[in-house]
Protein backbone atom coordinates (compact mmCIF):
# COMPACT_ATOMS: atom_id res chain seq x y z
CA UNK A 1 0.00 0.00 0.00
CA UNK A 2 2.99 2.28 0.20
CA UNK A 3 3.45 3.00 -3.43
CA UNK A 4 1.73 6.23 -4.47
CA UNK A 5 -0.06 4.76 -7.49
CA UNK A 6 -1.68 2.13 -5.35
CA UNK A 7 -2.60 4.59 -2.63
CA UNK A 8 -4.12 6.95 -5.15
CA UNK A 9 -6.10 4.21 -6.88
CA UNK A 10 -7.45 3.18 -3.52
CA UNK A 11 -8.39 6.78 -2.73
CA UNK A 12 -10.06 7.14 -6.09
CA UNK A 13 -12.00 3.88 -5.81
CA UNK A 14 -13.21 4.73 -2.35
CA UNK A 15 -14.19 8.34 -2.78
CA UNK A 16 -14.69 9.31 -6.42
CA UNK A 17 -18.40 8.48 -6.33
CA UNK A 18 -18.96 10.55 -3.20
CA UNK A 19 -17.16 13.55 -4.65
CA UNK A 20 -19.02 13.28 -7.95
CA UNK A 21 -22.30 12.82 -6.08
CA UNK A 22 -21.70 16.12 -4.35
CA UNK A 23 -20.58 17.91 -7.52
CA UNK A 24 -23.73 16.69 -9.28
CA UNK A 25 -25.70 18.66 -6.70
CA UNK A 26 -23.95 21.84 -7.75
CA UNK A 27 -23.48 21.56 -11.47
CA UNK A 28 -24.69 19.62 -14.44
CA UNK A 29 -23.17 16.35 -15.41
CA UNK A 30 -20.24 17.36 -17.62
CA UNK A 31 -19.06 20.10 -15.30
CA UNK A 32 -19.56 17.90 -12.23
CA UNK A 33 -17.43 15.15 -13.73
CA UNK A 34 -14.72 17.58 -14.81
CA UNK A 35 -14.64 19.09 -11.34
CA UNK A 36 -14.40 15.64 -9.72
CA UNK A 37 -11.56 14.60 -12.01
CA UNK A 38 -9.79 17.87 -11.29
CA UNK A 39 -10.27 17.32 -7.56
CA UNK A 40 -8.51 13.98 -7.74
CA UNK A 41 -5.69 15.44 -9.81
CA UNK A 42 -5.13 17.94 -6.99
CA UNK A 43 -5.23 15.01 -4.55
CA UNK A 44 -2.61 13.17 -6.59
CA UNK A 45 -0.27 16.16 -6.52
CA UNK A 46 -0.73 16.52 -2.77
CA UNK A 47 -0.90 12.81 -1.99
CA UNK A 48 1.84 13.09 0.62
CA UNK A 49 -0.07 15.63 2.67
CA UNK A 50 -3.64 14.35 2.55
CA UNK A 51 -5.39 14.42 5.91
CA UNK A 52 -7.07 11.37 7.37
CA UNK A 53 -9.94 10.85 6.65
CA UNK A 54 -9.51 12.29 3.16
CA UNK A 55 -13.17 12.63 2.11
CA UNK A 56 -13.88 16.01 3.80
CA UNK A 57 -10.72 17.40 2.25
CA UNK A 58 -11.72 16.12 -1.19
CA UNK A 59 -15.20 17.59 -0.83
CA UNK A 60 -13.64 20.90 0.20
CA UNK A 61 -11.45 20.96 -2.91
CA UNK A 62 -14.44 20.12 -5.12
CA UNK A 63 -16.48 22.82 -3.43
CA UNK A 64 -13.78 25.44 -4.13
CA UNK A 65 -13.46 24.36 -7.73
CA UNK A 66 -17.24 24.60 -8.14
CA UNK A 67 -17.24 28.08 -6.64
CA UNK A 68 -14.84 29.12 -9.40
CA UNK A 69 -17.39 27.97 -11.96
CA UNK A 70 -19.77 30.62 -10.68
CA UNK A 71 -18.59 33.33 -13.01
CA UNK A 72 -17.91 31.16 -15.98
CA UNK A 73 -20.21 29.88 -18.66
CA UNK A 74 -21.39 27.10 -16.38
CA UNK A 75 -22.94 28.90 -13.51
CA UNK A 76 -23.20 27.03 -10.29
CA UNK A 77 -26.80 25.99 -9.85
CA UNK A 78 -28.92 26.23 -6.76
CA UNK A 79 -28.82 23.06 -4.73
CA UNK A 80 -32.55 22.56 -4.53
CA UNK A 81 -32.91 23.14 -8.28
CA UNK A 82 -30.36 20.41 -8.86
CA UNK A 83 -32.14 18.04 -6.49
CA UNK A 84 -35.38 18.74 -8.34
CA UNK A 85 -33.69 18.21 -11.69
CA UNK A 86 -32.26 14.87 -10.56
CA UNK A 87 -35.56 13.67 -9.14
CA UNK A 88 -37.30 11.03 -11.23
CA UNK A 89 -40.65 9.27 -11.13
CA UNK A 90 -39.01 6.49 -9.15
CA UNK A 91 -38.35 8.93 -6.32
CA UNK A 92 -41.97 10.00 -6.33
CA UNK A 93 -43.14 6.41 -6.25
CA UNK A 94 -40.84 5.61 -3.37
CA UNK A 95 -42.01 8.59 -1.37
CA UNK A 96 -44.40 7.65 1.39
CA UNK A 97 -46.57 10.60 2.35
CA UNK A 98 -47.79 8.83 5.45
CA UNK A 99 -44.23 8.49 6.68
CA UNK A 100 -43.17 12.05 5.91
CA UNK A 101 -46.48 13.88 6.57
CA UNK A 102 -46.05 16.01 3.44
CA UNK A 103 -45.53 15.19 -0.20
CA UNK A 104 -42.19 15.39 -1.89
CA UNK A 105 -42.85 18.66 -3.71
CA UNK A 106 -43.88 20.38 -0.51
CA UNK A 107 -40.71 19.15 1.18
CA UNK A 108 -38.58 20.41 -1.71
CA UNK A 109 -40.41 23.72 -1.75
CA UNK A 110 -39.71 24.06 1.96
CA UNK A 111 -36.04 23.45 1.26
CA UNK A 112 -35.85 26.07 -1.45
CA UNK A 113 -36.91 28.65 1.11
CA UNK A 114 -33.83 27.91 3.21
CA UNK A 115 -30.49 29.65 2.72
CA UNK A 116 -28.32 27.63 0.37
CA UNK A 117 -25.68 27.02 3.00
CA UNK A 118 -28.17 25.63 5.46
CA UNK A 119 -29.31 23.06 2.92
CA UNK A 120 -25.69 22.23 2.26
CA UNK A 121 -25.16 21.74 5.98
CA UNK A 122 -28.02 19.24 5.94
CA UNK A 123 -26.54 17.46 2.93
CA UNK A 124 -23.20 16.91 4.64
CA UNK A 125 -24.82 15.84 7.89
CA UNK A 126 -27.52 13.59 6.48
CA UNK A 127 -26.40 12.31 3.09
CA UNK A 128 -22.70 12.12 3.87
CA UNK A 129 -22.89 11.47 7.62
CA UNK A 130 -20.02 13.90 8.23
CA UNK A 131 -19.48 14.94 11.85
CA UNK A 132 -19.65 18.75 12.39
CA UNK A 133 -15.84 19.09 12.60
CA UNK A 134 -15.43 17.59 9.15
CA UNK A 135 -18.43 19.28 7.55
CA UNK A 136 -17.25 22.66 8.85
CA UNK A 137 -13.88 21.92 7.24
CA UNK A 138 -15.56 21.29 3.89
CA UNK A 139 -17.63 24.45 4.08
CA UNK A 140 -14.73 26.57 5.27
CA UNK A 141 -16.48 27.86 8.36
CA UNK A 142 -16.08 27.35 12.09
CA UNK A 143 -17.67 24.36 13.77
CA UNK A 144 -19.85 26.78 15.72
CA UNK A 145 -21.15 28.45 12.57
CA UNK A 146 -21.77 25.06 11.00
CA UNK A 147 -23.72 23.86 14.01
CA UNK A 148 -25.80 27.04 13.96
CA UNK A 149 -26.63 26.49 10.27
CA UNK A 150 -27.51 22.88 10.85
CA UNK A 151 -29.66 23.62 13.85
CA UNK A 152 -31.44 26.42 12.01
CA UNK A 153 -31.99 24.28 8.95
CA UNK A 154 -33.50 21.47 11.00
CA UNK A 155 -35.76 23.84 12.88
CA UNK A 156 -37.02 25.66 9.82
CA UNK A 157 -37.47 22.50 7.88
CA UNK A 158 -39.39 20.94 10.75
CA UNK A 159 -41.62 23.98 10.93
CA UNK A 160 -42.16 24.08 7.19
CA UNK A 161 -42.99 20.39 7.17
CA UNK A 162 -45.32 20.77 10.09
CA UNK A 163 -43.27 18.38 12.18
CA UNK A 164 -42.81 20.74 15.09
CA UNK A 165 -46.25 20.19 16.51
CA UNK A 166 -47.79 22.94 14.40
CA UNK A 167 -51.20 22.17 12.99
CA UNK A 168 -50.58 22.52 9.27
CA UNK A 169 -47.62 22.06 7.05
CA UNK A 170 -46.73 25.39 5.62
CA UNK A 171 -44.49 26.46 2.78
CA UNK A 172 -42.22 29.41 3.35
CA UNK A 173 -42.35 31.72 0.40
CA UNK A 174 -39.73 34.25 1.31
CA UNK A 175 -36.11 33.18 1.61
CA UNK A 176 -34.80 33.58 5.11
CA UNK A 177 -31.71 35.62 5.68
CA UNK A 178 -28.34 33.94 5.85
CA UNK A 179 -26.34 35.55 8.70
CA UNK A 180 -22.92 34.62 7.38
Amino acid sequence: MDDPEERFTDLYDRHYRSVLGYALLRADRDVAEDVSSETFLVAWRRLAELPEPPLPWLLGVARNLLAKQRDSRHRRQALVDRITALTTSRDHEAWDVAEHVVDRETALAALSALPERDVEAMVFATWYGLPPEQAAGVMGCSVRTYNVRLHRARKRLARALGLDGGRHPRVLNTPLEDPR
Partner: protein
Amino acid sequence: MTDRTFARLKPEGLDELAEDGYRRRRSGDLARAFATPRTEAAPLRRRRPYVLAAATLAAGLAAVAASVVVTGDPAPRPAPPSASSAAPTVVDARSFLLAAATTAKREPAESGRYWYLNERTLQKVHVAPGEYMAGLKELSARFEKKEKELKGDQERLEAAREEFEREVGELKRQELPYTAFAADTTESWRAMRPGETSRSVRGQDVKVTFGSAEDEAAWRAAGSPELVQPGAGPRDDATPRVLSIDNPSLTLQNVRELPTSKDELRRRLDELWKRSPNSADVGKAGYLWQTGVDLMTAPIRPGTRSALYQVLADQPGIASKGEVKDALGRTGVALSVSTADGADFRLVFDPGTAELLEYDVVDKGVTQLRVAVAGMGFTDKLGERP
Protein backbone atom coordinates in the same frame (compact mmCIF):
# COMPACT_ATOMS: atom_id res chain seq x y z
CA MET B 1 -37.71 13.10 11.93
CA THR B 2 -36.62 16.07 9.87
CA ASP B 3 -33.35 14.31 9.12
CA ARG B 4 -35.17 11.24 7.93
CA THR B 5 -37.39 13.22 5.61
CA PHE B 6 -34.38 15.08 4.32
CA ALA B 7 -32.45 11.86 3.82
CA ARG B 8 -35.27 10.53 1.65
CA LEU B 9 -35.10 13.59 -0.58
CA LYS B 10 -31.82 12.36 -2.01
CA PRO B 11 -32.70 11.38 -5.58
CA GLU B 12 -32.14 7.71 -6.33
CA GLY B 13 -30.58 8.57 -9.65
CA LEU B 14 -27.76 10.45 -7.95
CA ASP B 15 -25.85 7.31 -6.95
CA GLU B 16 -26.35 5.82 -10.38
CA LEU B 17 -25.02 8.93 -12.09
CA ALA B 18 -22.04 8.89 -9.74
CA GLU B 19 -21.42 5.20 -10.41
CA ASP B 20 -21.68 5.77 -14.13
CA GLY B 21 -19.25 8.69 -14.00
CA TYR B 22 -16.86 6.62 -11.92
CA ARG B 23 -16.82 3.82 -14.49
CA ARG B 24 -16.30 6.12 -17.45
CA ARG B 25 -13.71 8.36 -15.84
CA ARG B 26 -11.65 5.93 -13.77
CA SER B 27 -9.02 4.72 -16.22
CA GLY B 28 -8.55 8.12 -17.83
CA ASP B 29 -8.27 9.91 -14.48
CA LEU B 30 -5.79 7.40 -13.09
CA ALA B 31 -3.68 7.58 -16.22
CA ARG B 32 -3.73 11.38 -16.25
CA ALA B 33 -2.72 11.53 -12.58
CA PHE B 34 0.13 9.03 -12.93
CA ALA B 35 1.49 11.08 -15.81
CA THR B 36 1.48 14.23 -13.65
CA PRO B 37 4.39 14.98 -11.33
CA ARG B 38 3.59 14.99 -7.63
CA THR B 39 4.82 17.53 -5.13
CA GLU B 40 7.16 15.95 -2.62
CA ALA B 41 6.02 15.53 0.97
CA ALA B 42 5.97 19.10 2.20
CA PRO B 43 5.37 20.12 5.79
CA LEU B 44 1.64 20.31 6.37
CA ARG B 45 0.27 23.72 5.70
CA ARG B 46 -1.75 25.22 8.50
CA ARG B 47 -5.14 23.87 7.90
CA ARG B 48 -8.32 23.84 9.84
CA PRO B 49 -7.92 20.79 12.00
CA TYR B 50 -10.38 18.02 11.42
CA VAL B 51 -11.02 15.97 14.49
CA LEU B 52 -9.56 12.71 13.46
CA ALA B 53 -10.77 9.94 15.65
CA ALA B 54 -11.91 8.19 12.52
CA ALA B 55 -10.88 4.57 12.36
CA THR B 56 -9.63 3.52 8.97
CA LEU B 57 -11.70 0.41 9.34
CA ALA B 58 -14.91 2.30 9.97
CA ALA B 59 -14.09 4.74 7.21
CA GLY B 60 -13.55 1.92 4.75
CA LEU B 61 -16.80 0.21 5.49
CA ALA B 62 -18.67 3.48 5.71
CA ALA B 63 -18.40 3.60 1.95
CA VAL B 64 -20.61 0.57 1.65
CA ALA B 65 -22.77 0.66 4.74
CA ALA B 66 -23.22 2.90 7.74
CA SER B 67 -20.23 3.48 9.97
CA VAL B 68 -19.35 0.16 11.47
CA VAL B 69 -16.78 -1.39 13.73
CA VAL B 70 -15.69 -4.99 13.56
CA THR B 71 -15.66 -6.81 16.85
CA GLY B 72 -12.80 -8.88 18.11
CA ASP B 73 -9.38 -8.47 19.59
CA PRO B 74 -7.80 -5.90 19.66
CA ALA B 75 -10.61 -3.73 20.96
CA PRO B 76 -12.70 -2.09 18.27
CA ARG B 77 -11.66 1.41 17.39
CA PRO B 78 -14.17 4.17 17.88
CA ALA B 79 -16.13 5.38 14.91
CA PRO B 80 -15.81 9.02 13.97
CA PRO B 81 -17.85 11.34 16.16
CA SER B 82 -21.03 12.10 14.36
CA ALA B 83 -23.82 14.51 15.08
CA SER B 84 -26.27 12.89 12.77
CA SER B 85 -25.84 9.16 12.96
CA ALA B 86 -26.53 6.86 15.85
CA ALA B 87 -23.93 4.77 17.68
CA PRO B 88 -21.82 2.58 15.39
CA THR B 89 -23.30 -0.77 14.56
CA VAL B 90 -21.29 -3.73 15.76
CA VAL B 91 -20.43 -6.08 12.95
CA ASP B 92 -19.84 -9.82 13.14
CA ALA B 93 -18.08 -12.04 10.63
CA ARG B 94 -21.26 -12.54 8.62
CA SER B 95 -22.05 -8.85 8.32
CA PHE B 96 -18.44 -8.14 7.46
CA LEU B 97 -18.61 -10.57 4.55
CA LEU B 98 -21.92 -9.15 3.39
CA ALA B 99 -20.45 -5.64 3.39
CA ALA B 100 -17.43 -7.01 1.54
CA ALA B 101 -19.82 -8.54 -0.99
CA THR B 102 -21.23 -5.08 -1.74
CA THR B 103 -17.79 -3.61 -2.18
CA ALA B 104 -16.62 -6.47 -4.39
CA LYS B 105 -19.54 -6.01 -6.77
CA ARG B 106 -18.56 -2.40 -7.40
CA GLU B 107 -15.09 -3.21 -8.66
CA PRO B 108 -14.82 -2.82 -12.40
CA ALA B 109 -14.35 -6.00 -14.38
CA GLU B 110 -11.05 -6.13 -16.22
CA SER B 111 -9.30 -8.30 -18.71
CA GLY B 112 -5.86 -8.85 -20.13
CA ARG B 113 -3.50 -11.31 -21.73
CA TYR B 114 -1.94 -12.61 -18.50
CA TRP B 115 -3.24 -13.10 -14.99
CA TYR B 116 -0.57 -11.88 -12.60
CA LEU B 117 -0.23 -13.05 -9.01
CA ASN B 118 2.39 -12.11 -6.44
CA GLU B 119 2.36 -14.14 -3.25
CA ARG B 120 4.63 -13.97 -0.23
CA THR B 121 4.61 -17.37 1.40
CA LEU B 122 5.75 -18.13 4.92
CA GLN B 123 5.75 -21.79 5.89
CA LYS B 124 7.08 -24.13 8.48
CA VAL B 125 10.06 -26.06 7.17
CA HIS B 126 9.52 -29.80 7.63
CA VAL B 127 12.62 -31.14 5.94
CA ALA B 128 15.93 -29.71 4.79
CA PRO B 129 15.71 -30.22 1.02
CA GLY B 130 19.35 -31.39 0.70
CA GLU B 131 19.02 -33.94 3.51
CA TYR B 132 15.68 -35.15 2.19
CA MET B 133 16.97 -35.68 -1.32
CA ALA B 134 20.07 -37.48 -0.05
CA GLY B 135 17.88 -39.73 2.11
CA LEU B 136 15.58 -40.46 -0.81
CA LYS B 137 18.49 -41.30 -3.11
CA GLU B 138 19.94 -43.68 -0.57
CA LEU B 139 16.62 -45.47 -0.10
CA SER B 140 16.00 -45.89 -3.80
CA ALA B 141 19.57 -47.09 -4.43
CA ARG B 142 19.12 -49.74 -1.76
CA PHE B 143 15.78 -50.79 -3.24
CA GLU B 144 17.16 -51.04 -6.77
CA LYS B 145 19.96 -53.27 -5.52
CA LYS B 146 17.45 -55.51 -3.77
CA GLU B 147 15.25 -55.56 -6.85
CA LYS B 148 18.14 -57.06 -8.84
CA GLU B 149 18.93 -59.58 -6.11
CA LEU B 150 15.33 -60.72 -5.88
CA LYS B 151 14.66 -60.97 -9.58
CA GLY B 152 12.03 -63.64 -10.14
CA ASP B 153 11.07 -63.97 -6.49
CA GLN B 154 7.73 -62.23 -6.82
CA GLU B 155 6.67 -62.57 -3.20
CA ARG B 156 9.82 -61.20 -1.58
CA LEU B 157 10.05 -58.49 -4.25
CA GLU B 158 6.59 -57.32 -3.31
CA ALA B 159 7.55 -57.24 0.37
CA ALA B 160 10.68 -55.23 -0.45
CA ARG B 161 8.62 -52.75 -2.41
CA GLU B 162 6.26 -52.34 0.51
CA GLU B 163 9.19 -51.82 2.84
CA PHE B 164 10.64 -49.20 0.48
CA GLU B 165 7.36 -47.30 0.31
CA ARG B 166 7.04 -47.37 4.08
CA GLU B 167 10.55 -45.95 4.46
CA VAL B 168 9.88 -43.18 1.96
CA GLY B 169 6.70 -42.33 3.85
CA GLU B 170 8.67 -42.16 7.06
CA LEU B 171 11.25 -39.91 5.50
CA LYS B 172 8.48 -37.62 4.27
CA ARG B 173 6.88 -37.39 7.68
CA GLN B 174 10.15 -36.78 9.47
CA GLU B 175 10.24 -33.45 11.21
CA LEU B 176 13.31 -31.35 11.73
CA PRO B 177 14.43 -31.39 15.37
CA TYR B 178 14.07 -27.59 15.41
CA THR B 179 11.39 -25.10 14.34
CA ALA B 180 12.19 -23.02 11.30
CA PHE B 181 10.12 -20.95 8.91
CA ALA B 182 10.95 -20.06 5.34
CA ALA B 183 9.55 -17.06 3.51
CA ASP B 184 9.78 -16.50 -0.21
CA THR B 185 7.99 -14.61 -2.94
CA THR B 186 6.50 -16.18 -6.04
CA GLU B 187 5.34 -14.17 -9.01
CA SER B 188 3.41 -15.73 -11.83
CA TRP B 189 2.09 -14.56 -15.17
CA ARG B 190 -0.42 -17.06 -16.48
CA ALA B 191 -1.53 -16.80 -20.05
CA MET B 192 -5.27 -16.42 -20.41
CA ARG B 193 -5.18 -18.13 -23.82
CA PRO B 194 -4.46 -21.86 -23.56
CA GLY B 195 -1.23 -22.86 -25.22
CA GLU B 196 0.50 -19.51 -24.75
CA THR B 197 3.65 -19.26 -22.67
CA SER B 198 3.27 -18.56 -18.95
CA ARG B 199 5.98 -17.49 -16.55
CA SER B 200 6.71 -18.09 -12.91
CA VAL B 201 9.51 -16.75 -10.74
CA ARG B 202 9.80 -18.72 -7.53
CA GLY B 203 12.04 -18.41 -4.53
CA GLN B 204 12.54 -14.63 -4.54
CA ASP B 205 13.70 -12.80 -1.40
CA VAL B 206 14.17 -16.00 0.56
CA LYS B 207 14.28 -15.48 4.29
CA VAL B 208 14.62 -18.13 6.98
CA THR B 209 13.58 -17.48 10.54
CA PHE B 210 13.69 -19.74 13.58
CA GLY B 211 11.11 -20.36 16.26
CA SER B 212 13.63 -19.37 18.94
CA ALA B 213 17.35 -18.87 19.58
CA GLU B 214 17.55 -22.53 20.72
CA ASP B 215 16.07 -23.63 17.43
CA GLU B 216 18.71 -21.66 15.56
CA ALA B 217 21.45 -23.18 17.73
CA ALA B 218 20.10 -26.68 17.01
CA TRP B 219 20.17 -25.90 13.29
CA ARG B 220 23.83 -24.82 13.55
CA ALA B 221 24.65 -27.94 15.53
CA ALA B 222 23.11 -29.98 12.69
CA GLY B 223 25.61 -28.40 10.29
CA SER B 224 23.49 -25.42 9.13
CA PRO B 225 21.78 -27.31 6.30
CA GLU B 226 20.15 -25.26 3.60
CA LEU B 227 16.43 -25.07 4.44
CA VAL B 228 15.11 -23.58 1.21
CA GLN B 229 16.09 -24.26 -2.33
CA PRO B 230 17.15 -21.00 -3.92
CA GLY B 231 15.06 -19.71 -6.80
CA ALA B 232 16.22 -20.56 -10.29
CA GLY B 233 14.98 -17.37 -11.95
CA PRO B 234 12.10 -17.02 -14.39
CA ARG B 235 10.64 -20.22 -15.78
CA ASP B 236 8.65 -20.04 -18.97
CA ASP B 237 6.47 -22.84 -20.26
CA ALA B 238 3.11 -23.45 -21.84
CA THR B 239 1.96 -26.25 -19.53
CA PRO B 240 -1.46 -25.46 -18.07
CA ARG B 241 -1.32 -25.19 -14.28
CA VAL B 242 -3.93 -26.53 -11.91
CA LEU B 243 -6.00 -23.63 -10.65
CA SER B 244 -7.65 -25.37 -7.73
CA ILE B 245 -6.44 -28.76 -6.51
CA ASP B 246 -9.87 -29.54 -5.07
CA ASN B 247 -11.62 -28.65 -8.33
CA PRO B 248 -9.91 -30.15 -11.36
CA SER B 249 -12.64 -28.86 -13.67
CA LEU B 250 -11.95 -25.18 -12.92
CA THR B 251 -9.54 -23.39 -15.22
CA LEU B 252 -8.14 -19.91 -15.57
CA GLN B 253 -10.46 -19.48 -18.53
CA ASN B 254 -13.73 -20.86 -17.22
CA VAL B 255 -13.79 -19.26 -13.74
CA ARG B 256 -15.04 -16.14 -15.51
CA GLU B 257 -18.24 -18.03 -16.27
CA LEU B 258 -19.03 -18.86 -12.66
CA PRO B 259 -22.43 -17.54 -11.52
CA THR B 260 -22.76 -14.08 -10.05
CA SER B 261 -25.78 -14.77 -7.89
CA LYS B 262 -25.43 -16.24 -4.44
CA ASP B 263 -27.88 -19.12 -4.88
CA GLU B 264 -26.52 -20.21 -8.22
CA LEU B 265 -22.94 -20.05 -7.04
CA ARG B 266 -23.82 -22.06 -3.94
CA ARG B 267 -25.44 -24.75 -6.09
CA ARG B 268 -22.41 -24.79 -8.35
CA LEU B 269 -20.02 -25.12 -5.40
CA ASP B 270 -22.16 -27.94 -3.98
CA GLU B 271 -21.81 -29.84 -7.27
CA LEU B 272 -18.08 -29.20 -7.37
CA TRP B 273 -17.77 -30.35 -3.76
CA LYS B 274 -19.46 -33.67 -4.55
CA ARG B 275 -17.00 -34.28 -7.37
CA SER B 276 -13.98 -33.04 -5.44
CA PRO B 277 -11.16 -35.56 -5.00
CA ASN B 278 -10.38 -34.08 -1.60
CA SER B 279 -13.83 -33.95 -0.07
CA ALA B 280 -13.23 -36.66 2.51
CA ASP B 281 -10.17 -35.04 4.04
CA VAL B 282 -11.13 -31.53 5.07
CA GLY B 283 -14.92 -31.53 5.24
CA LYS B 284 -17.17 -29.02 3.62
CA ALA B 285 -15.93 -26.02 5.64
CA GLY B 286 -12.33 -26.67 4.74
CA TYR B 287 -13.27 -27.28 1.12
CA LEU B 288 -15.24 -24.06 0.84
CA TRP B 289 -12.49 -21.95 2.32
CA GLN B 290 -9.72 -23.51 0.28
CA THR B 291 -11.81 -23.22 -2.88
CA GLY B 292 -12.72 -19.68 -1.83
CA VAL B 293 -9.05 -18.75 -1.68
CA ASP B 294 -8.40 -20.38 -5.06
CA LEU B 295 -11.21 -18.33 -6.58
CA MET B 296 -10.34 -15.07 -4.83
CA THR B 297 -6.86 -15.23 -6.33
CA ALA B 298 -8.21 -16.10 -9.79
CA PRO B 299 -9.69 -13.84 -12.48
CA ILE B 300 -13.32 -14.26 -11.46
CA ARG B 301 -15.87 -11.56 -12.21
CA PRO B 302 -16.61 -8.95 -9.51
CA GLY B 303 -20.14 -10.32 -9.28
CA THR B 304 -18.82 -13.82 -8.59
CA ARG B 305 -16.50 -12.49 -5.92
CA SER B 306 -19.46 -10.73 -4.35
CA ALA B 307 -21.58 -13.91 -4.49
CA LEU B 308 -18.70 -15.90 -3.03
CA TYR B 309 -18.54 -13.60 0.00
CA GLN B 310 -22.29 -14.07 0.46
CA VAL B 311 -21.96 -17.85 0.31
CA LEU B 312 -19.16 -17.75 2.88
CA ALA B 313 -21.23 -15.42 5.07
CA ASP B 314 -23.88 -18.15 5.33
CA GLN B 315 -21.41 -20.75 6.59
CA PRO B 316 -21.76 -21.69 10.24
CA GLY B 317 -18.79 -21.26 12.55
CA ILE B 318 -17.04 -18.30 10.97
CA ALA B 319 -15.60 -16.03 13.62
CA SER B 320 -14.29 -12.52 13.29
CA LYS B 321 -10.89 -12.16 14.92
CA GLY B 322 -10.85 -8.39 14.55
CA GLU B 323 -8.08 -6.27 13.18
CA VAL B 324 -4.72 -7.88 12.45
CA LYS B 325 -1.53 -7.10 10.57
CA ASP B 326 -0.70 -9.42 7.71
CA ALA B 327 2.73 -10.77 6.80
CA LEU B 328 3.39 -7.62 4.76
CA GLY B 329 2.39 -5.32 7.62
CA ARG B 330 -0.96 -4.33 6.13
CA THR B 331 -3.95 -3.97 8.42
CA GLY B 332 -6.96 -6.11 7.73
CA VAL B 333 -9.82 -7.95 9.35
CA ALA B 334 -9.31 -11.65 10.07
CA LEU B 335 -12.08 -14.23 9.77
CA SER B 336 -11.48 -17.82 10.72
CA VAL B 337 -13.13 -21.20 10.57
CA SER B 338 -12.12 -24.63 11.90
CA THR B 339 -12.06 -27.50 9.44
CA ALA B 340 -12.97 -31.15 10.00
CA ASP B 341 -9.32 -32.20 10.20
CA GLY B 342 -8.72 -29.88 13.15
CA ALA B 343 -6.94 -27.07 11.35
CA ASP B 344 -7.89 -23.43 11.54
CA PHE B 345 -8.26 -21.58 8.31
CA ARG B 346 -7.86 -17.83 8.51
CA LEU B 347 -8.57 -15.22 5.84
CA VAL B 348 -7.54 -11.60 6.19
CA PHE B 349 -9.45 -8.99 4.18
CA ASP B 350 -8.89 -5.34 3.47
CA PRO B 351 -12.05 -3.82 4.95
CA GLY B 352 -12.04 -0.98 2.45
CA THR B 353 -11.62 -2.84 -0.80
CA ALA B 354 -12.84 -6.26 0.34
CA GLU B 355 -9.75 -7.79 -1.22
CA LEU B 356 -8.08 -10.86 0.19
CA LEU B 357 -4.81 -9.82 1.86
CA GLU B 358 -3.68 -13.11 3.35
CA TYR B 359 -4.68 -16.69 4.02
CA ASP B 360 -3.27 -18.79 6.84
CA VAL B 361 -3.44 -22.37 7.98
CA VAL B 362 -2.94 -22.93 11.69
CA ASP B 363 -2.65 -26.47 13.04
CA LYS B 364 -2.90 -26.99 16.79
CA GLY B 365 -1.92 -23.41 17.44
CA VAL B 366 1.12 -23.49 15.16
CA THR B 367 1.02 -21.50 11.93
CA GLN B 368 1.83 -23.94 9.15
CA LEU B 369 1.32 -21.68 6.21
CA ARG B 370 0.86 -17.99 5.73
CA VAL B 371 0.40 -16.54 2.26
CA ALA B 372 0.10 -12.80 1.72
CA VAL B 373 -1.29 -11.72 -1.63
CA ALA B 374 1.01 -8.85 -2.49
CA GLY B 375 -0.63 -8.10 -5.80
CA MET B 376 -2.76 -9.55 -8.55
CA GLY B 377 -4.47 -8.42 -11.71
CA PHE B 378 -4.28 -8.42 -15.46
CA THR B 379 -1.31 -7.38 -17.51
CA ASP B 380 -0.59 -7.63 -21.22
CA LYS B 381 3.11 -8.41 -21.13
CA LEU B 382 5.13 -11.23 -19.61
CA GLY B 383 7.27 -9.89 -16.77
CA GLU B 384 5.28 -6.69 -16.49
CA ARG B 385 3.31 -6.07 -13.31
CA PRO B 386 -0.20 -4.65 -13.50
